[in-house]
């Protein structure tokens, strides 16, 4: 039997909680600082504007493209290669011109006229500034709604301390993931937002499995302090936590390396989020519930027992 941890030894996770809190506190603080200083590198979906991706038959000459664009009156355009040398991404900020929706076609025409190379249009995206605002609003709403929904579900299904612990860990994951995107100034677009929500979905998985075990242990063992019980629950779920993270990280690595440029941000956010989510559900979620004072009485089943429902005694 391959095993990640040896059976029988309980790891005193709760003893390390101060360390975890100091580390997480610093990371969260750092994330908030970079978010407020640097902000996020909002993608086209949120800022509005035009993005044009063109493919050249040979390696593209970026300075030449910039020059062409400037000559045609698109001065502020950001020109960068995208994935390969032949692929060029041009981003133009929203402008007050009347014909903003024709920008893409005009830029393409200018490039085609000015290049001996064959220029192929790969993608044009235009988002009106007001649509961008709405998308941002909806996105923020989605994150909050997800957190609130989870908070309520776990509070109903388990107990409010475990629920607060789990949601605290989720918020921690979201803030850190946003912090990473801010620090590295990676583009934050709709797919990355989807990834952030997927991180929430993943991290809650871990928290639920651990909470479930904590509840089960409280009901099963009649001795032991909450600290011992929580440590036991974390230890017995640890190999599952690590293995699931591992398989998820494996597929995300596949996505990151072969999934292409368009999905890069998505994979990055999830990779980081899964690592952070695994850590936080072990160290942050349960220790929050512990500090909030989760106890055996809170998790005992309701007094009225239904017919045929028995709690298995330990052998």
């Amino acid at each position, binding site marked *: 039997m391959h095993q990640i941890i040896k059976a029988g030894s309980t790891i005193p996770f709760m003893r390390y909680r101060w360390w975890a809190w100091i580390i997480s506190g610093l990371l969260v603080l750092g994330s908030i600082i970079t978010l407020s200083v640097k902000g996020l590198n909002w993608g086209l979906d949120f800022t509005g504007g035009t993005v044009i991706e063109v493919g050249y038959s040979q390696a593209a000459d970026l300075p030449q493209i910039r020059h062409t664009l400037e000559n045609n009156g698109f001065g502020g355009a950001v020109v960068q290669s995208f994935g390969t040398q032949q692929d060029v991404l041009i981003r133009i900020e929203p402008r007050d011109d009347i014909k903003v929706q024709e920008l893409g076609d005009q830029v393409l025409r200018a490039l085609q006229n000015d290049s001996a190379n064959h220029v192929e249009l790969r993608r044009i995206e235009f988002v009106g500034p007001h649509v961008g605002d709405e998308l941002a609003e909806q996105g923020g709403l989605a994150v909050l709604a997800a957190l609130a929904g989870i908070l309520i579900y776990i509070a109903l299904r388990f107990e409010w301390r475990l629920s607060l612990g789990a949601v605290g860990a989720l918020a921690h994951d979201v803030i850190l993931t946003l912090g990473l995107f801010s620090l590295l100034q990676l583009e934050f677009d709709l797919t990355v*937002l989807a990834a952030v929500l997927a991180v929430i979905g993943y991290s809650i998985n871990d928290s639920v499995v651990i909470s479930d075990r904590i509840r089960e242990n409280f009901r099963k063992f009649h001795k032991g302090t909450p600290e011992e019980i929580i440590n036991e629950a974390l230890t017995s779920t640890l190999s599952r936590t690590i293995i699931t993270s591992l398989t998820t990280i494996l597929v995300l690595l596949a996505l990151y390396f072969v999934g292409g440029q368009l999905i890069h941000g998505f994979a990055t956010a999830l990779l980081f989020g899964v690592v952070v989510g695994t850590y936080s559900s072990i160290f942050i979620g349960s220790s929050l519930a512990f500090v909030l004072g989760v106890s055996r009485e809170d998790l005992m089943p309701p007094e009225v027992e239904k017919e045929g429902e028995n709690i298995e005694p330990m052998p």
Partner: protein
Amino acid sequence: MLNKFPLWKNLMVIVIIAVASLYAIPNIYGEDYAVQISATRTVTVNDKTLTQVEQTLSELGVQAKGIAFENNQILVRVNTDAEQLQVRDALLKALGNDYIVALNLAPATPKWLAAIGAAPMKLGLDLRGGVHFLMEVDMDEATRKIQEQMRDTVRSELREERIRSSSIRRVDNDVVIELRTAEDYAAARRYLNNRYQGYRLLDDEVNNTLRLRMTEAKLKETQDYAISQNVTILRNRVNELGVAEPIVQRQGSSRIVVQLPGVQDTARAKEILGATATLEFRFVDTDNSLRDAEMGRVPFGSQLFPNRNGGNTLLREDVILTGDHIVNATAGFDENQRPQVSISLDGPGGDKMSLATRDNIGKPMATLFIEFKATGERDADDRIIFERHEEVINVATIQSRLGSNFRITGINSQQEAQNLALLLRAGALIAPIQIVEERTLGPSLGQENIDLGTKAIAWGFLLVVVFMGIYYRWFGWVANLALTANLVLIIGIMSMIPGATLTLPGMAGIVLTVGMAVDANVLIFERIREEIRAKRSPQQAIHYGYDSAFSTIMDANITTLLVALILFAVGTGPVKGFAVTLAIGIVTSMFTAIVGTRAVINAIWGGKKIDRLPV
């Protein structure tokens, strides 16, 4: 006995997976390049057309994979995309403008599969290439138009009742009627009170003035009507563009989504879709002086418009006919080889035209061309401001009483005649629209995205399978079997749901599901290992392992499903595509990981006397 499934449970697992596999099969066959020929309003597709198509193909020397004539459409399947373009161009030339010849992809599903309704997954624009537009409708203009019609109605009805008014105007959302005398006021008040549904009559006796004001309900109805009318008209225009399987849908209170798979020429698509040109036919005001009007003294009941030659023309305010009565319009040349547009009207339109021109033979009638252009600015309520450009494009003397068919001459160029004909044919938008979001993807990038997505799924799958096989040994391979079944189920269900569309983030969702789906099995297997460590017998270990993991798996998956549903409800575009596959993946993975693996494990190890479990 422990760990034996009843027959029905085994059968259920087999049947569910078999059905899903059956519906997943069409995805292997993929799609053929095809050219689709459909009729416009003036012609029908029939056997003659079919012969013509076959003839064109043989002249071209292209061997078609199949030619089918169904639902008033002819579908020609060919082997390569190059052939597809060749065939399209040849057919366009051979059939002329009366038919819509569009590029399409037709599922290459075998007949017996198609017979049970199986078809490949629908691919989103990011995988297929094409254009996505989000358009915003100018609601003010829609209301204004309705109010102007109301003004004209009130004016003619009061005239018929012989109630004398000094002015009838539209002011904001009201029609304001000023009466000459107190008697007229009383008569008008009696006449107009409760006459029009959706309007309230406000009176002002001191000034002999009445106001017809739209109720809130009527306002909303008007706006709903404007949106649905615009959707219909955009659909007509999209058909004129020759696009296969377009989507034109209302979104929210004032927006319309248009998706055109396979369209590359976005400039033309935008020109046609965004144009809000319409025509109005009006009489020229010959009783009053044009010069006076140009000096600023526009006579009451008339309006001054610029014309093509740089001057102005004075027209009567009453509209004889608006563009929405136009049934067909074709561009051509008149006797002197000048461009012209021939117009056919519907029944009511023909009656109106006939009635109006009967007593006015010999008088000049003007064609007013109205176009709305977005200024790019917004008003205080955050609505787009449109500018109304009006131009008299033609003044012609009515030679005889006009009926349902007549023509407009005096158009500048052949190109303009063609564009005008197309716009008239496709109908005039009730209210102007502006594109607020556009996403265009080239077809090569679409194919590239499919390849990348498939590769990512394959690699992710492989890595997980190898890991599980090594770490959990034989039980791991059972989990791998379940994972495979899970993939088949996701693809099968995606193919079965009519509205489900696979997008690139959707593929990412499948990849993520592959990684997370084994979680349930990991939970179960870890529990089984615990039970074994607790010195239970192998059979009991399996039984209690599954049992105790069950509620955990349910809780964990329900919360994730909750997130997926929120994503679906709140998200747009890419987020939605991701949410769909994620949600389907969660449900199917619960089935395969809990019921599916149990069926296999029970069949192999269950109920037997064994010492050790290969977990």
